[in-house]
């Protein structure tokens, strides 16, 4: 019984440590670097308790959130600067990991008008808002 109790305590504690959707803090979060030409690099760093898939979606949501703050209805994402220079856009941020800590990033160009490969800001926010801010039931 003691063992199970300890396990439950540890599980609930570790579960609480997973990176939540937030600005960069002790357990990770999103960050932004500008100055790569007219592109902005948007990243999301996770800790060892969050899945790479979730980190990638958090990064995508952050791209849409920044686009929304800039009042841009569309945005283009690029996996790398070289891909950006070749005009090859992507639908998902680049995902990598150091040890068991996933990290996702994308170079973003914000747009007023739609074009091939562009993502619609409002759609991304609507699709992922439940993941980012889960409703309490």
């Amino acid at each position, binding site marked *: 019984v003691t063992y199970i109790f300890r396990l439950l305590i540890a599980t609930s504690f570790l579960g609480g440590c997973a990176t939540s959707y937030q600005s960069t803090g002790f357990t990770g979060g999103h960050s932004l670097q500008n*100055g*790569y*030409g*007219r*592109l902005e690099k948007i990243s999301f760093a996770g800790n*060892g308790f969050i899945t790479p898939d979730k980190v990638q979606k958090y990064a995508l949501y952050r791209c849409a959130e920044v686009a929304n703050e800039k009042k841009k209805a569309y945005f283009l994402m690029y996996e*790398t*600067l*070289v891909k*950006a*220079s*070749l005009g090859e856009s992507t639908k998902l941020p*680049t*995902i*990598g*990991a*150091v*040890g*068991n*800590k996933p*990290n996702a*990033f994308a170079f973003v*160009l914000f747009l007023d008008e739609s074009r091939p490969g562009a993502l619609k800001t409002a759609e991304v926010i609507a699709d992922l808002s439940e993941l980012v801010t889960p409703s309490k039931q």
Partner: protein
Amino acid sequence: MYSQIKFALLVLVSVFASACATQAPPYQFSPEESTANILRGGMADLCLNGKMYTLSAAADDGSVKIPSGKRVSLANFMRFDSGNFIYTCKPAISFLPKSNATYYLHNYIRDNKCYMEVVKDDKSTEIGLAFEPSIGPRDCFPAKDKN
């Protein structure tokens, strides 16, 4: 006990790392030598004609000068502390910088591997960047790019 072991491991790693590190001399530009600028490069190491150099500290705008008109290799040391382990890698790339041109250097991790890329600053394009066609393999940096 665990924290003592962890501390001892960190000390050992640091000792080995410092023992392996060799300080390359700073690159000295001749007065008539043409240069290019690197932005966002951090403190990159330079390899030119098979010799390694350190580059001088970035200017106020974050740019670092490199020699132009000849193939140069650049490498950046990347270090990550996961809490229990320290991961390091040194991605590198070579290219042929043009005189007075500005380039962006970017390091990143994908699929547990470190990469470096370079693109040219070009304000005439929509994104402000242009593909750099002279990109090639590294010169004298060892191929240790797995973290």
